[in-house]
């Protein structure tokens, strides 16, 4: 349950990320600037820390050197006076002197220890600040270095080491500085000053927190600035996108407000310019198509009336041809057939020009395509018989209802069947019908003369016929397939051809079962697999 919610949330977030340029820009900017600020901040914190430590150390080294000098001078003076008690107390005196000198800051601990390489009596005794355990803070390494320096009288005279000072459960950073001093009568001693650096640490801490706060504030500021800037840019773009959508939906009057002279105003202006010319074009085309439509319907009416008269006259003459002399009788016959041909041509031309004018509406209803195919086959069966072609319908079960306009599909089928009979050389003609969930396909296969690839390229062209002199039985204006193609396209369907010279042709019509869906594939192969099982009955 919880994971499910989490997923939904994630999906919503991803959706928002994808859909909002503003969110994406702000997020990326904030991310990158966080990265940059972190690096810069870290570098600054480290270098400030180093500088702070270096300068404090140098200062303390100078102080220690002074303290060392003081102690040395004190020791020298004590040796000159030579009194035993003085010598006994030399270390303590020196300790007090160092404690009081400017060399000591608050919290500084002091130890004056006899160098480990000195032999003889330990006079004076070691002195150390109360509570200081020299062994825990002064490492042997430091001690050795100081000892070695004392033995060889080397420069530098002071040596240092960082230490952690533990007191009351707190650990403070500290520095131990050691130097070698000599009490002429009794030997070498070592002066150790242990400074607590917690004040420097505090300063560093406050610098770091300032840096952190500054960095955070900077990031928030950058985010806010980006948000505002992107908003300024994205806002008009969003308005333009909304307007474009409205335009596409047909609200041709929509425009983007134009403000100022900047790039966005230029965008708005050119957008509006585009919309203006688009609107002008559309209006122009609409009027043009209206004019065309009216012209077509006028032509239709004007031509049809005289054609009706001619047709009636032709038929009246034809009915009486037996009473005419042979030549006149033949004339009457020719008149009648040519008028019929003219009629078909006129109807085809009008149909074509209606397509060209975009003045075609489709009026679909759920139709059983197998029934439609059988109807079409019936209507050409007598023609097929005179040519000796057997018509076979192969229709395995399936979903055969499709939303089509029966009149147009019947017209396509009649043309395909007519063509197959015309070019089928009297061989059988197979009509396949098959379907799947989304599409229905009808294929008309003949085994006649077929076509060359060059001819296949042109079959759907208007007025194109492979061999105009060929005897025709089904009209023959060469507009049939052009109209069929338009009819198929009007349904959102396909009309395709396969052919090979001498092997025959196959025309496959594929239609979506529901209006408005796009076809992906056809339920039938092109040409369909031959079905040899059904010849027996």
């Amino acid at each position, binding site marked *: 349950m919880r994971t499910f919610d989490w997923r939904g949330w994630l999906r919503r977030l991803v959706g928002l990320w994808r859909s909002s340029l503003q969110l994406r820009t702000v997020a990326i900017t904030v991310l990158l600037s966080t990265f940059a600020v972190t690096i810069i901040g870290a570098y600054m914190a480290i270098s400030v820390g180093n500088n702070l430590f270096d300068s404090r150390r140098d200062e303390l080294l100078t102080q220690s050197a002074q303290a060392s000098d003081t102690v040395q001078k004190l020791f020298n003076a004590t040796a000159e006076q030579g009194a035993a008690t003085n010598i006994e107390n030399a270390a303590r005196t020196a300790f007090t002197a160092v404690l009081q000198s400017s060399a000591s800051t608050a919290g500084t601990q002091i130890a004056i220890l006899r160098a480990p390489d000195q032999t003889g009596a330990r006079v004076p005794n070691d002195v150390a600040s109360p509570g200081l355990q020299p062994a825990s803070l002064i490492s042997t390494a430091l001690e050795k270095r100081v000892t070695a320096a004392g033995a060889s009288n080397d420069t530098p005279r002071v040596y240092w080491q960082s230490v952690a000072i533990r007191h009351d459960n707190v650990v403070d950073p500290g520095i131990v500085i050691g130097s070698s001093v000599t009490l002429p009568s009794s030997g070498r001693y070592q002066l150790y000053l242990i400074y607590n650096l917690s004040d420097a640490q505090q300063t560093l801490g406050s610098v770091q927190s300032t840096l952190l706060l500054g960095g955070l504030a900077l990031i928030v500021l950058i985010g806010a600035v980006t948000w505002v800037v992107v908003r300024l840019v994205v806002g008009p773009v969003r308005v333009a996108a909304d307007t474009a959508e409205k335009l596409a939906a047909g609200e041709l009057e929509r425009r983007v407000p134009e403000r100022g002279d900047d790039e966005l105003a230029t965008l708005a202006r050119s957008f509006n310019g585009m919309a203006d010319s688009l609107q002008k074009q559309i209006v122009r085309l609409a009027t043009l198509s209206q004019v065309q439509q009216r012209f077509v*319907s006028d032509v*239709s*009416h004007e031509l*049809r*009336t*005289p*054609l*009706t*008269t*001619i*047709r*009636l*006259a032709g*038929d*009246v003459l034809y*009915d009486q041809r037996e009473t005419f002399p042979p030549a006149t009788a033949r004339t009457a016959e020719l008149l009648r057939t040519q008028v019929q041909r003219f*009629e078909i041509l006129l109807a085809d031309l009008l149909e074509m020009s209606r397509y060209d004018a975009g003045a075609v509406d489709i009026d679909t209803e759920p139709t059983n395509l197998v029934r439609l195919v059988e109807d079409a086959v019936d209507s050409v069966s007598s023609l097929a018989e005179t040519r000796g072609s057997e018509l076979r319908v192969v229709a395995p079960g399936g979903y055969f209802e499709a939303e089509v306009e029966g009149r147009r599909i019947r017209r396509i089928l009649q043309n395909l069947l007519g063509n197959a009979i015309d070019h089928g050389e009297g061989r059988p003609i197979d009509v396949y019908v098959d379907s799947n969930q989304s599409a229905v396909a009808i294929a008309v296969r003949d085994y006649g003369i077929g076509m060359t690839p060059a001819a296949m390229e042109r079959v759907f062209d208007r007025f194109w016929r492979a061999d105009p002199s060929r005897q025709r039985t089904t009209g023959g204006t060469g507009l049939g397939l052009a109209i069929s193609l338009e009819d198929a396209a009007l349904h959102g369907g396909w009309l395709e051809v396969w052919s090979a010279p001498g092997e025959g042709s196959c025309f496959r019509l594929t239609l979506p079962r529901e209006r408005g869906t796009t076809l992906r594939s056809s339920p039938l192969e092109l040409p369909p697999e031959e079905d040899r099982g059904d010849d027996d009955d």
Partner: protein
Amino acid sequence: MRTMNARILVVDDDTALAEMIGIVLRTEGFDPVFCADGSEAVEAFRSSNPDLVLLDLMLPGMDGIEVATRIREESGTPIIMLTAKSDTADVVKGLESGADDYVVKPFNPKELVARIRTRLRPSPHTSADVLHVGDLVLDVAGHEVRRGDGKINLTPLEFELLLALAIKPQQVFTREMLLEQVWGYHYKADTRLVNVHVQRLRAKVEHDPDNPRIVMTVRGVGYRAGTAS
């Protein structure tokens, strides 16, 4: 009504076509009368008293639809429209204004004559003299429909449509069946003919045309007569 020498008024502005139609009609034994102007058509109708009117939809003066409406106001005489366009709203408008049938140009003589003959033929023969549909009484011989004492004026086509349903009250008629029985079409024809005339019939015989009791709709199939009460 006799088919022989039936008088037919041809209203068409194209004189050549009108004359040609006249020749065809005369060969078939009809008696044609002509009128070339829409505005004179109603006058010509009154003076010639034809058995049937052939009416071009596009006419100067007054268009065919208007003429059909005017003629229907005074008579139920069959009207067949001549139209150059079958797929336009004009055809439906013509049918709604009372035309019984239409023929699309270019037509051939046989088609035209067949349409005319169907409209002029006598009603189908029935054994019963009187039929009941809902609260209506059909007097078959007298071509009359009565509700109580009042007579309802139907055109011959509307009467025939109602009669076809009433003769077989049990049967559901598809539009195609009605097209064949009433309009004489033996092949697929325009089902708008049935739809429009059922509407016109209902407007005359139903108490509430939105809730028909006489001509009932059978969803997805067609129509049937309401049960007699």
